[in-house]
């Protein structure tokens, strides 16, 4: 199927990573953070001082103890960091640098049936890589998804280019796809772009779809909406292509090998490029080779959807990029660089700044300033321009704010996730935190209707 996404916006940010893979310093410390998973209440399975191997369980889902979360490295549990009300924020592991595996036997997965495979993936700690829509949480093992989606490209600003990262990785990728095919009665959909690498264009056991258009065309939510929209009661799973490779490596070797290549971008580092690292690594280890300018914000993930981390923080479980942007904590005089400036160097999707008259190749400086204050919702038609769903975004948000579940369902909440609203949040004149509203709505639906 060919899909053309018309409404959207490519954010032209300075600091796009060059296509060079730097070998990073191995992280000495790793973290597994329950906050990386929406709606998860963790139950600890280790104590401080316990020794762990790659693939050893660290905590599980309190309400479904089959879903476990495992250590990406071998070593000793260093700290269990707790926040308010003793909520677990992170479990950190001091690596011994050996990456000893808990399990070293490869299995012949083609002989397993679906239930056996599910049990195996759950035990190995690979299960959390599978996520589901609606709600956008870890897939529930009891579901039978109508299809599984993989987007082979990321359209977020400063995002990694999987065609580059996964070049020549067909064996691992196809091995992963084989497992996914066992998990669904429907198809595994792989969305590619024109000129995609052959790892994707020649992938086996998948239905490929050619996608064209600006961000968010790389979001699986948009792709599902076009290819196989989710109705009430239906479940679709999705997984990141690099995580498919982790499944593939497990299938080939039996090891929990959470190696990945991430993009490190942003204006505040000297030479943005790609870094080979391991899931849960410390940000410090990832940025060791870079010169970082003072007063920076470190983001695990994309500037649109990622999480703010401290410099001594850790890479998120689902994140494949780190962005370093200037903090915008300075006043801007209204005429020179503030709200009434001519703004030739300010990026705006609205036509009230001259961005739209500039050459398309121009890149812009971004900082984390809100560029205004939060206001009531005034301007209409703005979200619709960057929201390529057949859904009324503002009305859906209003139904969420008023906790009107029936209306949320009617207006299509089952099809969306916060990341699909990231651009709405970006362009919002009234600076409303749209993604948070959507997350709250999904949490309510999960509690009441699932």
């Amino acid at each position, binding site marked *: 199927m060919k899909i053309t996404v018309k409404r959207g916006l490519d954010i032209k940010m300075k600091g796009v990573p060059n296509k060079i893979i730097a070998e990073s310093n191995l992280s000495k410390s790793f973290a597994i953070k329950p906050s990386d998973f929406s709606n998860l209440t963790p139950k600890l399975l280790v104590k401080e001082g316990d020794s762990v191997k790659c693939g050893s369980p660290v905590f599980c889902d309190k309400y479904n103890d089959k879903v476990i979360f495992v250590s990406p490295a071998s070593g000793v549990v260093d700290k269990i960091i707790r926040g308010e009300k003793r909520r677990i924020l992170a479990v950190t592991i001091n690596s011994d640098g050996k990456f000893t595996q808990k399990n070293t036997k490869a299995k012949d997965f083609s002989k397993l049936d679906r239930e056996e495979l599910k049990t195996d993936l759950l035990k190995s700690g690979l299960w959390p890589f599978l996520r589901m829509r609606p709600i956008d949480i870890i897939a529930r093992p009891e579901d039978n998804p109508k299809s599984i989606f993989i987007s082979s490209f990321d359209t977020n600003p400063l995002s990694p280019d999987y065609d580059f990262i996964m070049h020549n990785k067909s064996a691992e990728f196809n091995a992963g796809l084989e497992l996914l095919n066992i998990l669904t009665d429907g198809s595994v959909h792989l969305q590619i772009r024109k000129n995609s690498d052959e790892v994707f264009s020649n992938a086996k056991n998948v239905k490929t779809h050619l996608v064209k258009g600006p961000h968010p065309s790389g979001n699986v939510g948009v792709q599902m909406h076009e290819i196989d929209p989710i*109705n009430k009661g*239906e479940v679709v799973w999705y997984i990141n292509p690099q995580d498919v490779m982790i499944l593939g490596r497990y299938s080939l070797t039996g090891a929990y090998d959470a190696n990945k290549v991430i993009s490190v971008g942003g204006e505040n580092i000297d030479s943005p490029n790609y870094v080979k690292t391991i899931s849960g690594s410390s940000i410090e280890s990832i940025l060791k080779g870079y010169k970082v300018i003072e007063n920076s*914000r470190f*983001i695990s993930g994309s*500037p*649109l*959807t*990622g999480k*703010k981390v401290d410099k001594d923080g850790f890479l998120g479980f689902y994140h494949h990029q780190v962005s370093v*942007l200037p903090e*915008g*904590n*300075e*006043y*801007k*005089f*209204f005429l020179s660089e*503030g*709200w*009434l400036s001519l703004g030739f160097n*300010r*990026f*705006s*999707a*609205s*036509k*009230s*700044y001259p961005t739209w008259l500039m050459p398309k190749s121009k890149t812009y400086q971004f900082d*984390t*300033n*809100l*560029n*205004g*204050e939060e*206001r*009531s*919702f*005034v*301007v*209409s*038609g703005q979200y*619709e321009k960057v929201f390529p769903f*057949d859904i*009324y975004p503002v*009305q859906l948000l209003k139904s969420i704010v008023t906790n009107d579940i029936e209306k949320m369902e*009617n*207006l*299509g909440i089952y099809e969306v996730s*916060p990341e699909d609203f990231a651009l709405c*949040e*970006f*362009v*919002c*004149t*009234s*600076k409303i*935190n*749209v*993604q*948070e509203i959507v997350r709250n709505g999904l949490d309510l639906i999960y509690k009441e209707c699932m």
Partner: protein
Amino acid sequence: MKFLRNIFDNAHKTLSSSEKTKKFFPLVDAFDTLMFTPNHVTKKGSHVRDAIDLKRTMMLVIIALIPCLLFGIYNTGYQHFRVLGELEVITFWEIFFKGALVVLPLVVVSYGAGLFVEFIFAIKNGHTVQEGFLVSGMLIPLCMPADVPLWMVAVATIFAVVIGKEVFGGTGMNILNVALTARAFLFFAHPTKMSGNEVWVTGFSELKGENYASLVSSANPEGVVDGSSGATALGDLASFMQDSPVLENTQAFQAKYSLMDSFLGFIPGSVGETSALMCLIGAALLLWTGIASWRVISSFFVGGFVMATILNLIGGNGYFELPAIHQLMLGGFMFGMVFMATDPVTAAHTNAGKFIYGFLGGFLGILIRMVNPAYPEGIMLAILIANVFAPLIDHMVIQNNINRRLKRLKTA
């Protein structure tokens, strides 16, 4: 800029030092954020944000209103000297100065009264001042007759801001256009100052008194005939529907108010509404910057044109026979279309709904104006009606979307 920054920082410090003065924070904050985009950084969600904010959006609308304001000032002076018959002997700057003397107080009173209410509500509710009134404050004087007493403007503005906006929760929550609420309030509460033949030209009622004859006699005698009327074009047109029309037929009307004069705006009317050309310049800026909805403006124009054409075809009297395009250049049609109907808060919010909403506004505006000549200001009433219907229109559009989704569920 450091100097200015320090002043605000000190002001904030002084205010926050005592509980009593803390509540005046919105006052300083409003001016601070006017001069400086604050140093707030993103805390949740997207880490980077678009450069646009509500201040810029509102300011661009005000800039778009400036041509109308300047022409309104000139035309107010122009009409004044026209009835005096002194146009020949007076300079451009004298005309402009006379107009400014009348119009600027209206602007000052409108902003003063409105912002006063906004500040009181902000202090009372402990929130910052939102920018909504910046545009309303300019629209209110521009949709008033030049001769309206200042105290009425103040009362109408306070009524509109309190009853039209704040009771609903402030900026972004109102159902009716604030500026039109102010106008409608005066229209029904003080009709003698808002309609008829004597309020559109400043000083007209005084001139009509005893001194009038002596005032005009010194000037061009032709000015007496011309100056005898302070009525608007629509007022003259409405008289076609009565037993004794002011003018004999449509041709006589077209001779008095040529299409060109109506387009350029050298006719009596509310301060800012008379010039279609200036409205179009404003429209061009608003459409170019994407602030006004082209859907509303285009469908509003089409709606008005269709209705005017229908009545044109029916014919039968001098009013109905006026060509549609001339009809649309008169009264508040263009001004309402560009600046009032496009208010994003009170217009329909869905893209499909905007077409219906705009069409309804234009269609009803001409219908009310022409079929009920007691209300030549049909556009004001039509936009208010369309405002009331906008949520219903949106509801229909959204229900359509919901049904589409339900149908997919059934076939799946």
